[in-house]
């Protein structure tokens, strides 16, 4: 379990993180979401004890950072890179040993993970001889080699082809089922929506939205009407009861005013364009992200 209590980080003239609190339960995936420069990386660095918060505290399993604290956490940074001229197994063992493992234990765990990700053959190869996707897998292995109880993954899917994305996803779900506490930081809202139980949306160092995914959706998201059509649908923007409409030519998302029944606009639209599909949709995390960030003056 990871508890973040009212942390704040000031750099010389900037408050990077301001009063952030959240709790991540073991066996859950927690989404740390926000635009670039929102304070995600600073928050992650504080959790990893790379930098100290100016105030507030971080507890892992109820304990403050101290000796061997580093051995509890695993981290996959967004930007990837490895020692190009070293062999795969050397690197895996080195990072294992930096996390307090013995050489033998690190080798065993490394070999097992290489097998799970289907790259056992590359054990003795130099990193520079590997494809980009395989290098990313090594990086993933490095972050979980020591079986950390807290795992922080920053854009874990970037750089993988769809097949390897599935492989990594399964690996993350396996760790989740083993009761690891997992923080997923990403811009891929559909991924976050599919994988996270709870989220924390941060902008300009402050909380914008947080809680269980369902709760956040209920609280911040509004239902909207999705249509697929043929013809000129510009008139929809000026219909009474319509708050705003995003039209893409043969696809549109329409938001209605509070108190307006979405069904009430169907007949009008039906009359003027050829309608192939009409549905009332639950809000997507993507929509919530864009709307709330715009409201709080983000990018």
């Amino acid at each position, binding site marked *: 379990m990871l508890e973040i209590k009212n942390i704040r980080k000031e750099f010389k003239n900037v408050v990077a993180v301001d009063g952030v609190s959240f709790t991540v339960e073991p066996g859950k995936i927690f989404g740390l979401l926000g635009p670039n420069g929102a304070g995600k990386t600073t928050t992650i*660095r504080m959790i990893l004890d790379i930098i100290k918060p100016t105030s507030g505290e971080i507890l892992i399993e109820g304990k403050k950072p101290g000796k061997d604290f*580093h051995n509890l956490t695993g981290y996959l940074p967004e930007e990837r890179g490895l020692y190009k001229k070293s062999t795969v197994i050397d690197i895996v063992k*080195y*990072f294992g040993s930096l996390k307090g493992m013995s050489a033998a234990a690190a080798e065993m765990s490394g070999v097992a993970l290489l097998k799970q990700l289907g790259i056992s053959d590359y054990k003795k190869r130099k990193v520079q001889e590997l494809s980009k996707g395989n290098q990313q897998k090594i990086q993933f292995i490095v972050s979980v080699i020591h079986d950390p109880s807290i795992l922080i993954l920053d854009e874990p899917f970037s750089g993988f082809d769809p097949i390897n994305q599935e492989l990594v996803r399964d690996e993350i779900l396996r760790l989740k089922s083993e009761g690891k506490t997992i923080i997923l930081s990403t811009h891929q809202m559909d991924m976050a929506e599919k994988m996270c139980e709870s989220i924390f949306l941060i902008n300009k160092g402050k909380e914008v939205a947080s809680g269980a995914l369902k709760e956040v959706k209920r609280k911040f998201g509004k239902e909207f009407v999705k249509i697929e059509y043929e013809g000129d649908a510009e008139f929809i923007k000026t219909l009474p009861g319509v708050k705003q409409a995003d039209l893409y030519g043969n696809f549109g998302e329409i938001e209605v005013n509070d108190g307006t029944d979405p069904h009430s606009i169907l007949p009008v639209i039906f009359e003027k364009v050829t309608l192939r599909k009409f549905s009332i949709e639950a809000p997507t995390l993507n929509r919530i992200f864009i709307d709330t960030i715009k409201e709080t003056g983000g990018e």
Partner: protein
Amino acid sequence: MKKAFEVAKWEFLQKVMSKEFIISVVVTPVIFIVFSILPSLLADNDSDSPKAITILDSTGLYEADLRAELEKEKLEDGQPRYVIPKSGVEQKDIQVAKKRLDDSVFHKKVFEGYIYIYEQPDSGLQLEFRSKSMGNFRDLRIIDAKFNSIRRTKMLENKNLEQSLLDSLTKEVDLRSVKITLEGEEKINFETQFFSTFIVIMALFFIIMFTGGSLVRSLVEEKSNRLIEIILSSCRPDDLLMGKVLGLTLLVFAQLTIWAMLAIAFGGPMLASASIFQNLHLVIPYFMLAFLFYVSIFVGLGSIVNTEQEAQQVTTYLTLLIIFPVVILMPIIQNPDQEMVKIFAYIPFTSPLVMIARVNVVQVPFYEHLIAMGILLVSILVVIKISVKIFRIGILSYGKLPSFKELMNWLRS
């Protein structure tokens, strides 16, 4: 501490097996051998076979004696140094013979050169060694000494002096340079001193440059691919810094050990006489202190740079600082106790290399070592403290190089 050790192990093993290391271990000595032996080979062009020369004596007084004396000179292998046939030239034919000999020497027909003795109306007796080139340094010295000794003997012979007095008057006294040390005295040879000191100091300079440069490059690599974040989520920056310094120190020990073994294998007894090897008990501590001092600076400055270019910039400035003692090596060896030299011996940037140079030529008082090493140790501690502070922040900051003002802020935080 255990993690610092893991970092050290990694740095050492990865580097010791790298191509760069193997090249530096092998190529550097080759360069040094070429640079140090070649000039002396060229300068001391002492032929290993006898030289054919002759004597053209227009006074007719010296030829026989001089030939007899010169024929006593032997080469190292016991052969005579010179082969001197009688010239057999009549007094009246001197000028013709000179012309003919000049021509012969110029075209290297028979003689490599000839000694020409003649009387000049206003300036008296003249001695020339005429050859195609300027003449070998050693030949000139021998001929000069022999001739003057003969001339003196001849002049005194006519004065009816006692034989013993004559002997002592004509005896040549050589000037020898003797270095006085606590243990007694030892003869020194300036060239050996200079070259052995120069080679050792250049070698140390290269080691520091090589390891310092590779340290900065590895930091730039780790920063640019963000490995540094994974490392710092595994160990404290102080452990990382210490591990890197320790790993590099081990690497340098490995390098020195290999060189020492090569040196003993190829030139053991010859090297043992050079005083730099007799002073190893001082050279090694000074070198290790210098190494720690510079590596601590490199690691601090290395943490702020982000690109190879910036790394190049930073290391260039440091190189200038390190190479300074090499530039002033000659005056140090000539005047090891000059006030200015003593001052450099206390400034941490120059002190180790200046001290290494000095201990080879003079007996440096114990208290001076104490002061110099004390200053170095304190400076190392200060530099490490500063470097750690810069490192902790620098290693996580990207973008443009911090200004001096920003660095100062980091130090205060």
